[in-house]
């Protein structure tokens, strides 16, 4: 049940009215209802894994209470470690076990050792990367004193299974539980802003991402028959596709949260306006990078602090490999993470990593020339990474790269289908709006536009694009993670 589907609209209309009308007065009843709705939402997608989600939630709930009650540091530390091992174990078993078995079997085979290892028939639960990260951060934050362990199992379970975020994030930190605990009043402004953000998300997902996907899928599936320019162009469009797909989903999730009175953490901040790769990762999938910064990078950076910049580079490389592997069990993701980690090295050595430059504009409101150069370079480097990200194997990624440069760049033209002009127009509209709205939370915050008429023209313009040019295929790139 994805956000852009009829079942979800029906589901959410019922949730919205029951939540804000009969249950308006009691937060506890609202929370129980939200939990039931969240389990229904999850079960609708993957009912067989619902017991796993419930058991994991119960275990971590008691671990949190156990850590909070521990009188000795040793016991608290032990329970914290148990939580981390269980959380990581859950992820390793469902997501990475077969990958490790196959990788080691291949490695032994290459050095002449025959193994009888075979992979298991494991079905990966939907959203496992997202809910296990919430579970792990909970025990860590309770242990570190960042949050008090909650006694209310409904609040905790709702935080873990909160339906707008369970399948594809954003990954809110455990402080989000305080929002579930508080009484929520219906806020008209917040709800309307939620609707605007959903509309902006629909535009990015259905109009930009899914139209890009048509071209990108065609080129990637027949890349051996394509010209260098077509492959290069597909890599660029693929960057826009992944961004529009995932940030579109995040906007819809945040918008749905606003309609229910919640403030879900921001996930993207115009990453294509980043001036360097470090800046890019501060703007891309921010809830994941924030999570990994807190629980992986900072402890590593702390351990390696005596080694200065070398220590920082080591922490970044490990951190980025974890970011890469989080996306999936494939060596392509390891290389993707390592590639991005290596892009940080010159930034750390030059000191640019520490600087947070503000975007500068020229007299007509466009990016200053130097900043534009930084943006284009960053975008090109990111697009190269997207080829690794998208490829099914490292060999395929290498072949893709080599064909960009070895096959005549303009020999066959840009793909058999020609340049997807309409898709390019959609991407351009998205980029222009995001540039104009770069200091706003999302593309349709039109506070600066005083004319109501103009605002509604904008909303209906975007809405008509969604209905006229949207591709309603109901798949999201990040669901597989």
């Amino acid at each position, binding site marked *: 049940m994805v956000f852009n589907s009829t079942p979800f609209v029906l589901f959410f209309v019922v949730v919205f009215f029951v939540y804000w009308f009969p249950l308006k007065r009691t937060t506890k009843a609202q929370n129980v209802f939200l939990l039931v709705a969240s389990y229904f939402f999850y079960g609708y997608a993957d009912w067989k894994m619902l017991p796993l989600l419930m058991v994991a939630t119960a275990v971590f709930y008691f671990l949190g209470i156990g850590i909070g009650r521990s009188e000795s540091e040793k016991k608290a530390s032990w329970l914290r470690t148990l939580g981390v091992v269980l959380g990581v174990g859950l992820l390793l078993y469902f997501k990475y076990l077969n990958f490790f078995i196959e990788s080691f079997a291949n490695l032994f085979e290459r050095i002449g050792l025959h193994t009888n290892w075979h992979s298991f028939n494991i079905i990966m639960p939907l959203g496992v990367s997202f809910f296990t990260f919430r579970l792990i951060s909970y025990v860590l934050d309770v242990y570190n004193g960042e949050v008090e362990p909650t006694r209310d199992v409904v609040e905790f379970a709702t935080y873990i299974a909160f339906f707008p975020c369970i399948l594809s994030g954003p990954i809110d930190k455990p402080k989000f539980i305080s929002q579930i605990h508080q009484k929520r009043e219906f806020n008209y402004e917040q709800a309307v802003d939620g609707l605007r953000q959903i509309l902006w998300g629909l535009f990015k997902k259905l109009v930009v991402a899914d139209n890009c996907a048509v071209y990108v899928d065609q080129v990637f599936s027949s890349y051996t028959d394509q010209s260098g320019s077509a492959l290069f162009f597909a890599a660029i469009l693929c960057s826009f596709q992944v961004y529009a797909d995932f940030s579109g989903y995040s906007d819809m999730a945040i918008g749905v949260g606003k309609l229910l009175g919640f403030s879900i953490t921001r996930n993207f901040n115009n990453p294509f306006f980043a001036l360097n790769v470090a800046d890019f990762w501060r703007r891309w999938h921010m809830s994941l990078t924030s999570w990994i910064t807190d629980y992986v*990078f900072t402890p590593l950076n702390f351990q390696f602090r005596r080694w200065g910049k070398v220590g*920082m580079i080591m922490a970044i490389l490990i951190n980025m490999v974890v970011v890469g592997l989080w996306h999936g069990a494939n060596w392509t993701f390891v290389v993707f993470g390592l590639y991005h980690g290596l892009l940080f090295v010159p930034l750390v050595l030059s000191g640019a990593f520490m600087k*947070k430059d503000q975007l500068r504009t020229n007299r007509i409101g466009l990016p200053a020339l130097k900043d534009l150069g930084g943006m284009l370079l960053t975008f090109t480097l990111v697009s190269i990474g997207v080829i690794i990200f998208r490829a099914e194997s490292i060999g395929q990624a290498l072949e893709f790269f080599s064909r960009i440069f070895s096959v005549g760049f303009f020999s066959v033209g840009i793909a058999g289908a020609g340049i997807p002009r309409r898709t390019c127009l959609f991407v351009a509209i998205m980029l222009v709006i995001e540039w104009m709205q770069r200091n706003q939370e999302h593309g349709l915050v039109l506070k600066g536009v005083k004319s109501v008429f103009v605002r509604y023209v904008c909303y209906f313009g975007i809405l008509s694009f969604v209905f006229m040019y949207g591709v309603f295929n109901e798949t999201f790139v990040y669901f597989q993670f």
Partner: protein
Amino acid sequence: MEKREIIERLTAIFCEIFSDNTLVLNDDMTAADVENWDSLTHMMMITKVEEVFGIRFKLRELNKLKNVGDLCQIIMDKLS
């Protein structure tokens, strides 16, 4: 070591790490009050504090720091 002396040394560290010679420290000061104070410069500042005062922190101790006052207190505890 007296708190006044700790604050003096901390001020010198903060000015160097956060590239701001006008910083005046007080107990309630937090990362939100200093422009360049983020997770990276925080770690650099902590490393410098360890070096200058000859002490070692645990990560969990750092996680509990809420402001400059807490940092002074933990330094005093470690030196006493």
